[in-house]
């Protein structure tokens, strides 16, 4: 069935193409006058951070959607997006740390953006942890939706932190009110290609993750319908003779 093969393989094709374009642009783009080749970390670091924003925004939408419609499909969207967002945040932090060592001389400092990014990371790790505690799917959906909404408040905080606290981290150079401040168009294109590639990866992962959630839910439903032991059946009448012997 070729159509099925096609429908199964589209994500891989899309990821392959976009990653190839992004990689080649990242390689041909010029090295930085100050940072040299290190600047190429940016092409992964920045898209990862932006995709984390996107992912957590989708979690916000999914959480709100669940609370309004009470449909578990919204919850699956929120949860899947949060998982991917945590990966992307971790990637941005990890690469940022690798970048920081040669440029700032330390792995980590108490820069506002760094701190708030870590805070955001912890909030969504907490979100995933919370999802693991409740066994009823509706209880879980409701509770995590609250956190999904609350956590989204951190997105603007992380983004504007460089404006509010002027410490170490690079200020916004692209997403800012008076237009991008990058002169070399190739750098701009490489960055954009990276963003596109990450977006494709994000969408593909989302589709897969939602599918997985669906399968997991239906497996649970199936198990539920199957014969399970009855809790009360294991309690039997006392054996009067047993421990008491001397009747």
């Amino acid at each position, binding site marked *: 069935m070729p159509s099925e093969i096609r429908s199964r393989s589209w994500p891989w094709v899309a990821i392959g193409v976009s990653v190839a374009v992004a990689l080649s642009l990242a390689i041909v783009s010029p090295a930085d006058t100050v940072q040299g080749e290190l600047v190429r970390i940016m092409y992964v670091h920045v898209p990862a951070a932006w995709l984390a924003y996107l992912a957590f925004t989708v979690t916000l939408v999914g959480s709100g959607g669940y609370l309004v419609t*009470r449909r578990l499909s919204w919850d699956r969207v929120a949860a899947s997006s949060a998982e991917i967002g945590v990966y992307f945040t971790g990637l941005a932090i990890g690469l940022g740390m690798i970048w920081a060592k040669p440029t700032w001389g330390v792995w980590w400092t108490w820069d506002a953006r760094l701190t708030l990014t870590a805070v955001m990371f912890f909030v969504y790790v907490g979100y995933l942890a919370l999802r693991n505690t409740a*066994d009823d799917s509706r209880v879980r959906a409701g509770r995590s939706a609250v956190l999904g909404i609350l956590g989204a408040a951190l997105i603007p905080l992380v983004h504007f932190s460089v404006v509010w606290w002027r410490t170490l981290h690079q200020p916004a150079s692209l997403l800012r009110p008076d237009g991008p401040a990058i002169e070399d168009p190739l750098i701009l294109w490489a960055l954009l290609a990276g963003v596109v590639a990450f977006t494709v990866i994000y969408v593909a992962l989302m589709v897969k993750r939602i599918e997985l959630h669906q399968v997991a839910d239906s497996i649970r439903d199936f198990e539920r319908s199957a014969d*399970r*032991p009855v*809790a*009360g059946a294991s309690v039997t*009448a006392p054996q009067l003779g047993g421990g008491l012997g001397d009747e």
Partner: protein
Amino acid sequence: MSFVIELHDIGVDAGSMSILRGVDLEVGPGEILGLFGPNGAGKTTLLRLVATLVRPSAGTGSVLGTDLSSQQRYAIRRRIGMIGHVPGLYPELTLGENLEFAARVAGVSRDEVGSALAAVGLAGVIDREAGVSSHGMQRRAEFARELMIDRDLLLLDEPHSALDQDAVELVNALVKKIAAEGGAVILVSHDRERVARIADRTVELTEGTLE
């Protein structure tokens, strides 16, 4: 009028086990139902299900005309009284303060507290903290609460345990009053004779299933 409680093929799961399975039950207005069954059969779980405190994982049901799976079920809680195995008073508050809290939340005048406690014979200990009140006194206070808040459905888990003879009479009077006003009562007990004297009908729950 339709049924106060109507359960069809209800199941309740916990983890990898079923607690209740395929429970059908109908209780009409004015009815007093005795519920028996061995330890661990699921009687308490059934009461909590009817009180909207446990959600069914299978089947359909309605209580006081409200579907058990709908969001509206929270609106009927005010009309359902339950007394469980263990008292649910705040030990740091006095018996009077406990009832006063209940009255204010339920929208009953605070003046009712005194007379409700007097009715269960606790007028003299209104200022005693629940934590140092005897077990029977705490249970009496809970009955006073149910008396004070006019309930349409009363769920009693072994109401006679820990109550002395006088208090038992009182409980029976409360049960009959609610039934007479068109409400329904479920009495869980292991004391078949005592319940048989007051119940209109009795059912038996064994291994999560009603017979």
